[in-house]
């Protein structure tokens, strides 16, 4: 059945015509189109705050400011032990005690780590909603704001960063970049185009909607723990 979705051209043309009239555009917009194309190609940046030379330390500081917790480990092999230690050390109120679970999911790229040896039961599958623990890698991390950057893909299921109560992200030190601009440049250089989702996450899910009082764990994770490797 043909509906307004298929037959939107009249509205489209009417809106664009009204915009052109409002702008006083008469005749061709070719010059403006060429200028817009050139502006996109130039990728000009705005003013940037100065960054220290040690951006990894800066990333860890800012991530902590955003209420993530951080630990630095020497190699990927140390990650399962570090996750177990982190969970054991969690002190939770009685209402949230069940969240201290050692069971959950991880991204396929982390499947080969010795989770069982650290007393963890992690399945390498996308989460379907009620997993307590989610362990992921990350595409890159932003020092300016302590932000983790995730790209959607077959081996990087998006919701693993969102649905579990506890999110542990493994970040390689050589993937820390200065700002959002460098993250975009990296995506263009390595992937060519944006994936379906670029999710930039800075600390646990939070709300201030009741009396402007900040509460963590609004919908997504109550806690984000960052393991920086290298």
């Amino acid at each position, binding site marked *: 059945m043909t509906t307004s979705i298929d037959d939107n051209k009249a509205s489209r043309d009417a809106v664009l015509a009204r915009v052109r009239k409002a*702008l006083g555009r008469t005749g061709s917009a070719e010059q*403006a189109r060429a200028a817009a194309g050139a502006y*996109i190609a130039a990728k000009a940046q705005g003013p940037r705050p100065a960054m220290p030379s040690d951006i990894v330390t800066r990333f860890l500081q800012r991530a902590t400011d955003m209420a993530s917790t951080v630990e630095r480990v020497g190699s990927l092999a140390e990650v399962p032990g570090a996750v177990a230690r982190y969970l054991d050390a969690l002190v939770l109120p009685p209402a949230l005690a069940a969240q201290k679970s050692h069971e959950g999911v991880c991204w396929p790229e982390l499947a080969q780590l010795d989770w069982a040896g650290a007393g963890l039961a992690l399945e390498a599958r996308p989460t379907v909603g009620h997993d307590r623990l989610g362990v992921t890698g990350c595409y890159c991390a932003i020092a300016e704001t302590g932000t983790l950057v995730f790209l959607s893909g077959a081996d990087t299921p998006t919701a693993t960063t969102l649905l579990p109560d506890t999110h542990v992200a493994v970040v390689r030190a050589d993937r820390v970049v200065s700002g959002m601009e460098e993250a975009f440049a990296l995506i263009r250089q390595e992937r060519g*185009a944006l994936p*379906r989702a670029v999710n930039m996450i800075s600390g646990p899910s939070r709300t201030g909607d009741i009396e*402007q009082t900040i509460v963590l764990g609004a919908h997504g994770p109550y806690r984000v723990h960052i393991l920086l490797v290298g």
Partner: protein
Amino acid sequence: MQVASMHFKERASERLNDEVLRANLGKIKGKFVANRKRSLSELDDFEATRDAGRAIRQRALDDLDVWLESFEASATARGAKVLFAQTPAEINKLVLDIAARHGVRKIIKSKSMVSEESALDHAIEGAGLTVVETDLGEYILQINDYEPPSHIIGPALHKTKEEVAELFHRKHGTPKKDVIEDLCLEARGVLREHYLTADMGISGGNFFVAETGSVVLVTNEGNATLTTTLPKVHVAISGIEKIVPTLEDVATLMRLLPRSATGQSISNYVDILTGPRGAGEFHGVDHMYFIVVDSGRSEVLGSEVREALRCIRCGACMNHCPVYQNIGGHSYGWVYPGPIGSILTPMYVGLENALDLPQASTMCNQCGVVCPVRIPLPDLQRKLREREFAEDLRPWYERAAVRLWAWAACRPALYALGTRIGVRVLRTLAGPDGMIHRLPLFGAGWTTGRDMPAPAGRTFRELYAKRGGTSR
């Protein structure tokens, strides 16, 4: 949404007597305002960043037709469908047709102010479908029989935790909680089930990126991310003016938006979404739609208040406004409160339906000083006041008073005499404390709620002449 902006004065007076509301509004200064100031110091050059933000938004507006076409081409190339809505009714029609096309029964929604303009939730429920707001503030308002939002980023900040506790107890049938954390936990549980069972997600759009055909969504709760990740259909709704050219422009604006809004260096979740699911992906939507809304915006673009379209909806103007701080958002009577609402509401619903809003200002320019994209808000309010006068929309006594003043001001000798008499008469009305407690005649209303300081001595013109200035 129903327009109640003609009742601004009555609504504002009621709110001024609401002690609970004023206590809640009083918290804005300690939180949003104080945090903004602290977080701006992290930018080495805030003023230069503001200039850049202004230029990005103005560039998009100056060639908006070209940027809209560019966005449409990029988004279409990535498999999304771009639809245009001329009116609020058309937004609702498109959403319902999309829902019907994909056999949708339940819709989850993250915050969209544009969908408030069209009362989309009512249209969805009218069609027999379920819709659930997921932003905690919006959810609270939805289950309170669609109470209107009072702030664009903290829609329920007028409510106390006791009111929310009572509401949850009544609507969820659960024991009454008295701690904010427990209330949030309860809402989380209710909403989690909705996320996992919804067929379609509706979001707003903080920005539409022309370069990539993406929508940018900014939240702290992560509700927009869940809303656009778990269901099989995503509809992003925003205004035609929300286009920005490049990802670099997004980076610059994201240095301004969270800091100006809540005073955070960055919002917890920033999503850039482009097209439907890729090959082999488990999460993500199968169908992505954009609804790009005009609904009065092209008229603003061609008007004397076009600069208002630069707005990035941070809410700093209302957080810093002495009028908003005292009466809250409901007094403004429509979707957008505060200084920016005083411009957008009359433009979108008709100046004749919102006569008081351009007057709802002390002209102190706090809003203009904090606006991250340098919208000259008091100037724009003044332009709407001029338009009200030119279109004979002001009351007869106000127009008569202005004409009388203009007549006198053109006759300097008469004006000087009048003011000299006026000042002396006013002084005789003053009490021993130098204050006038009751003005006579037309001034009586002014002194019902406050005193007026009596003139201290002679008129300005008399003092000026005495100091050797020339007076005609």
